[in-house]
């Protein structure tokens, strides 16, 4: 045993790093929307990269522990209590059997990651535990967490109580600039339309989910209506006939026939997925070279050196 779900909140999903190498049979990747917050959660717990954690959208999760262990919550600002006592985020915290863990509704950002020492024990499907509800694959029977579900994990008696100091934590603002690698059908978007896309603001639509974030704003037109269906990568920005761009995320379909203007940088997708409907997005073009550099620099940023051990 490990935890019993009392309240699952809006949308609680077990996620590991994602499901890769299965596009040929039509399976998407899934995985954490905010990869940085997910990675920090595992790093703080000293878990291997990609260890299974719970991704919670908009908060409202309540669990009861049935083992002694350690947890860590990262991502959106949301009030966390353990056995009724307020606790900090980005901190490894001890939990005793019988304790109630409650994560309230998020106030800033909307995706939280709740990890546990050594991870939740979930049987892999197609090489991954990531839950994709649309496909009914991963997690516990392919669905979101429900009240009464059991989350298995090991009893752990010692673990460093690491904390990421506040000044180093990701900041989720209500406005974001998303870097985009222009590509795919870019040449079918007239120059004027490209300029509009890369200079005018968009707002996040209420019809945004793990498949994609829909944008509302200036209509962008393309000189072709549709294309022969082709592969869609993470972050691809498709522009359907209504001219309103959709940034495709982790649960996107693997192929599609709408023209695409390019794809967003994954480092910015992590922040985009923390935006709520109504918040503002700007798009800015970067070259493949710049994207390559940005990814390498981010990978070499040794964040664990910043952790402080709070002791016991």
């Amino acid at each position, binding site marked *: 045993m490990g935890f019993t779900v009392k309240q699952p909140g809006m949308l609680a999903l077990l996620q590991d790093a994602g499901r*890769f190498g*299965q596009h040929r*049979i*039509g399976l998407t990747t899934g995985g954490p929307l905010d990869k940085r917050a997910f990675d920090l959660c595992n790093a703080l717990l000293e878990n291997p990269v990609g260890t299974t954690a719970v991704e919670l959208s908009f908060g409202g999760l309540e669990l009861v522990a049935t083992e002694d262990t350690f947890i860590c919550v990262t991502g959106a600002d949301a009030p966390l209590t353990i056995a009724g006592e307020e606790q900090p985020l980005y901190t490894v915290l001890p939990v005793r059997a019988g304790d109630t863990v409650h994560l309230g509704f998020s106030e800033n950002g909307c995706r939280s990651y709740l990890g546990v020492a050594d991870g939740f024990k979930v049987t892999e499907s197609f090489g991954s535990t990531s839950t994709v509800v649309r496909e009914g694959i991963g997690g516990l029977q392919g669905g979101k967490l429900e009240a009464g579900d059991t989350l298995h994990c090991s009893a752990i008696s010692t673990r460093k109580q690491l904390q990421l100091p506040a000044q180093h934590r990701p900041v989720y603002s209500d406005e974001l600039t998303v870097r985009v*690698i222009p590509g795919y059908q870019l040449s079918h978007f007239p120059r004027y339309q490209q300029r509009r896309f890369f200079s005018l603001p968009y707002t996040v639509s209420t019809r945004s989910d793990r498949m994609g974030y829909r944008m509302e704003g200036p209509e962008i037109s393309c000189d072709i209506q549709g294309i022969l269906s*082709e*592969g*869609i990568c993470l972050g691809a920005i498709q522009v359907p006939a209504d001219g309103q761009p959709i940034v495709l995320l982790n649960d996107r379909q693997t192929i599609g026939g709408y023209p695409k203007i390019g794809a967003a*940088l994954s480092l910015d997708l992590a922040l985009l997925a923390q935006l709520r409907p109504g918040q503002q997005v700007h798009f800015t073009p970067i070259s493949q070279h710049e994207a*390559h550099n940005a990814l390498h620099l981010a990978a070499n940023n040794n964040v664990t050196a910043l952790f402080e051990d709070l002791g016991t």
Partner: protein
Amino acid sequence: MRIHPAGENALIVYLGEAATPVVSAQVQALAEGLQQQLGADLIDVVPSYASLLVIYDPLTTDHMAVSRCIRAVVAQGTDTETGGGALIELPVYYHSEVGEDLESLAEAAQLSIDDVIGLHSGAEYRVYAIGFAPGFAYLGEVDERIAAPRLATPRQRVPRGAVAIADRQTAVYPAPSPGGWNLIGRCPIRMFDPDATPTMPVGVGDRVRFVPVTREEYLTLGGEL
């Protein structure tokens, strides 16, 4: 061949402008060649009608190296057998009982129902792409006489096994889902079973032929009504 950037760690390779068996075979050959050449640097590929999306590990390689590799594999050429992969026969119970659009499709095409069945089961199709949903195989191309546009209002729920036509494509629904294709029959074989090995009876590049079966045979093969 054209190579375009797709994303931070992805390139899309266009091998032709239209879906033909030759282009489809080239897509297949490139996917296989890259798997051998790139090894662990290759994260995934998405073969489709006339393109291949190549997703690589941006921390171990880069778009320049991957482009070079794509060009080398394409330059090597392949004595592309357009015949394609394995031939898979799929039984279909064609009847308005399970194919709600069979009659209207025949009427619109000014054909008898038997003609529609004859044309659909008389051709050999190629698996051009798999996507939309796990195990959803896009097969082409149906005879232009039975090509039919998508429904104006998609159905909320199309049952598993539904055999359907949209334009010149045909498919078997792998799981219940909403759908706007014209339903003409039902296949008792599961197109996607996560617990089976292999999970799908077909792969991209394979050939498919539909074999008409009676209601009784359909039920014996495990079909549901």
